[in-house]
């Protein structure tokens, strides 16, 4: 059944802006992105919005709906009462370009700083091998669609612009963890994760996990395991002593510290 949605959208650019009312007709089963598109088609043709797949897989339509970081295409209107006002704003951690579009290049800069997967030479038959159980471990991390909602909600950069230089953010801690757990990667990334990516700045308040549209347990399965790995490398005198007297963890053999 159609009804008139009380929709508010932030309009503006880097010079300033405000939240404006756009009451719009919506139907049962629609999502916030549908309402935004209808506003764009009927009331505000110049409304800037980034979107692509409308299926929660491309990670383009990240925004904040009633203050919560969400993918607009996965945000059902049926989750709200029909008389409820819905306010849509751009992600508030990144520089705004126009309306709902932000400049997320911070994330691409951070991606560049992360050394890529570095496998060892191939086996004699020109293949590389991994056991299935080791392949499965990293699958959860590969579900990331790079919507950057975790980066947006992380208070380390959301509330402290100056930390952006020293802090890679949850999306990249996920990548550090994936590679550090990878049996074929020849890099030891633990020191780098702490010293250059700023893992120590994370205080594990789990907002990244709360907003992940893919349901990746970023904190429990990536950040905390990575913090424990860093503790092995930097904060555990017993591990250090074990290494000194030859009780090395052979699981780490063949890795080069970055």
């Amino acid at each position: 059944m159609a009804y008139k949605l009380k929709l508010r959208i932030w309009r503006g650019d880097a010079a300033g802006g405000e939240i404006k009312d756009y009451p719009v007709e919506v139907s049962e089963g629609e999502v916030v992105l549908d309402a935004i598109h209808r506003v764009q088609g009927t009331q505000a043709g110049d409304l800037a919005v980034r979107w692509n797949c409308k299926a929660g897989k491309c990670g383009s339509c990240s925004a904040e709906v009633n203050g919560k970081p969400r993918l607009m295409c996965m945000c059902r209107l049926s989750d709200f009462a029909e008389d409820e006002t819905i306010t849509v704003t751009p992600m508030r951690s990144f520089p705004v370009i126009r309306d709902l579009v932000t400049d997320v290049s911070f994330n691409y800069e951070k991606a560049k700083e992360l050394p890529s997967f570095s496998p060892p030479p191939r086996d004699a038959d020109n293949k590389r091998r991994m056991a299935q159980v080791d392949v499965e471990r990293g699958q959860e991390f590969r579900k990331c669609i790079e919507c950057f909602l975790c980066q947006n909600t992380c208070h380390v950069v959301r509330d402290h612009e100056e930390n952006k230089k020293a802090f890679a953010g949850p999306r990249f801690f996920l990548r550090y963890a994936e590679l550090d757990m990878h049996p074929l990667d020849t890099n030891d990334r633990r020191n780098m994760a702490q010293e250059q990516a700023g893992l120590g700045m994370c205080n594990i308040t789990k907002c990244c996990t709360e907003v992940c549209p893919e349901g990746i347990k970023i904190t429990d399965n990536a950040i905390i395991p990575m913090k424990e790995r860093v503790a092995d490398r930097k904060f555990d005198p017993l591990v250090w002593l074990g290494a000194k007297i030859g009780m090395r963890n052979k699981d780490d053999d063949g890795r080069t510290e970055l």
Partner: protein
Amino acid sequence: MSVTDDRMSNGVGGPTRAAIPEKTLRTDRWWLAPLSTFLVFSSFIVYATWRAFADKDYFTEPYLSPFYSPCLGDCVKGSSDFGQPFGGFPLSAALIILIFPLGFRMTCYYYRKSYYRAFWLSPPACAVAEPHTTYTGETRLPLILNNLHRYFWYAAIVVGLILSYDVVLAFGPAEGESDGIHMGLGTLVLLANVVFIWLYTLSCHSCRHAVGGRLRHFSKHPVRYRLWTWVSKINVHHAKFAWYSLFSVAAADLYVMLVANGTIDDLRFF
């Protein structure tokens, strides 16, 4: 510019961000979780501090309060199952050992999330601007010490074993009863407590790391991989066990105190 604006100007109110004056546009009751956490944890801290300094009503045959176990100081007769190596300690015996469970919980990944949110408001809730102008996380003293969580976990294993031993002793006779196996409501209270303590201890993230999480080749360590999968299953409920064990340890102490000071009689089953 108001104080709040000053604080926000470094974050969501910064010059490059979308100009929105509100520190959050959330319309749900985001403050409820941190507020309840603050109230419950504060109540526990007040209760535990009072009981730790009280130095009385912590033992009544055969029950010993978990706050005072092991009782290594100048403890009442029958309560020191591991001797009194700190017999000359002038303060309450609880203060000798409380650093271990306290340290375990203070450095616990779940409690860190909770107190950073509820006590330090860093952040109070997701996408709600925090009130601090600067932030360094866990990179400096004292918070960098949270990286020593695994050492408190090692100690927590020992504490768990001692509390388990206390439960075995709690099946013993109360004053005036014959030798042999007995059971009272207090036995069940201590038993329930130790079950929650073990669930909390074994679901710890450091435990998960130690048993297998630190490996890069699960395939080469099938036993540790199996252990890791078990710990992973309960690790999902770590926060729940943190709360249950917090309540159970306070309830166990309260029960022992009420029996010890004569407020209630222990219900004896056999």
